[in-house]
């Protein structure tokens, strides 16, 4: 599954988890940017950075199999684009270096997202004076993501239990109806949330 919805490791207890969210975000960004800017000759630097990140991963107490699986699931796109790098002089070396850099980036972000609850990252954004409307949107999006994905699952299941022909064209129509229903319900829910916000004094 491309996205892990269970979010079961972001609230564990480990030195990495306990580190302040702002620090983790800045460090992650710094690591990624540094590696991205590395020319292909600096393989040693990349290796060193990777060791640091792997050490952090070990400290975080998140099961290795989970981390590896998360990274592997996102690799296909990386490989698909990296293959295009082969079509130029020095392609093989570039290809390998690209894959290494990308995988490093994936590992850093997977580690960040699984040791830091998103609500903490939101608070960092709020503290950094990100625009209020953007923070509210991200906040509500995070809150209702799971609700909507659930709703979509339930609607899909309900449709599937009344579908007896495997025709693909019908499947598209069905899925489109599910998506449209999802929007209609979301917009109605947005109205109710507005009412709930007003009920507690929002202006």
């Amino acid at each position, binding site marked *: 599954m491309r996205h892990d919805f269970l*979010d079961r490791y972001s*609230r564990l207890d480990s030195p990495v988890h306990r580190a302040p969210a702002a620090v983790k975000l800045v460090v992650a960004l710094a690591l990624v940017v540094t590696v991205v800017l590395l020319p292909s000759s600096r393989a040693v630097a990349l290796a060193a950075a990777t060791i640091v990140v792997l050490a952090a991963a070990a400290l975080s107490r998140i099961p290795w199999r989970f981390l590896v699986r998360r990274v592997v699931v996102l690799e296909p796109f990386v490989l698909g684009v990296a293959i295009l790098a082969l079509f130029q002089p020095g392609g093989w070396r570039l290809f390998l270096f690209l894959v290494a850099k990308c995988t490093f980036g994936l590992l850093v972000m997977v580690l960040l997202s699984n040791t830091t*609850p*998103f*609500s903490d990252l*939101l608070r960092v954004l709020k503290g950094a004076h990100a625009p209020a409307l953007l923070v509210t949107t991200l*906040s*509500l999006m*995070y*809150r*209702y*993501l*799971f*609700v909507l994905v659930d709703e979509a699952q339930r609607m899909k299941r309900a449709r599937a239990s009344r579908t007896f022909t495997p025709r693909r064209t019908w499947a598209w129509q069905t899925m489109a109806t599910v998506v449209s229903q999802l929007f209609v319900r979301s917009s109605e*829910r947005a109205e*109710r*949330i507005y*009412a*709930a*916000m*007003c*009920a*507690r*004094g*929002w*202006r």
Partner: protein
Amino acid sequence: MSAAIEVRNLHFRYGEGTHALHGVSFSIAEGESVGLIGPNGAGKSTLLLHLNGLLPEVWTGEPSVLVGGNPVTPGTALEVRRKVGLLFQDANDQLFCPTVFEDVAFGPQQLGLSEAEIRERVTRALAHAGIPGFEARAPHHLSVGEKRRVCLAGVLACEPSILALDEPTSSLDPKGRRELKELLRGITLTKLIATHDLELVVELCSRVILLDGGAVAAQGPTLALLSDEELMLRHNLERPHILRHLHPH
């Protein structure tokens, strides 16, 4: 002493023309616990939304709702929302912040309280709602019952004098229902509880208002009204089992 809530001849029509409330009138004294019952579509939720000024969206004519003696108007709506705490039917709609703490703190924040006061109110409200220590939890990890308690805490944190609840026990398992019932029993604020759960009404409410088709069909003491089998059936309800062995007064 003015009534906690007074509703006088309240009419309401939805934009498209559906006449939802017809001349509803009743009053609730301070400290009373009143049940609002009726079949689906009777207008219970619509009525509750009038108590804190969320409806009507367009104001015309005389105000029909008075809270603590003061009329509810666009000008007084914000003040009224502090006094009347409304618990919505769907906990998911009311619990809209990324963590429990932030959600319960929402009301106090809107009131402009200091950080320390907010923190104190949140701790107290969570304790009152029976879920102390839930501050850091994420809403999508909570059960229906827990979500409902968080919503209750969020309302209590605003320190209202009146509590209006819309189907508080719906979707709860028997244990959750029992716990919520005890919780509500322990809250001494004026309460108006809209519900299908007639046993809850018998246990918590001294008086009952029966709404059907947007109008008050009957109101009176709980036991008398709910034991009237014929009245109950006429309005798509029924006499609760708990009263089967009691004689009507």
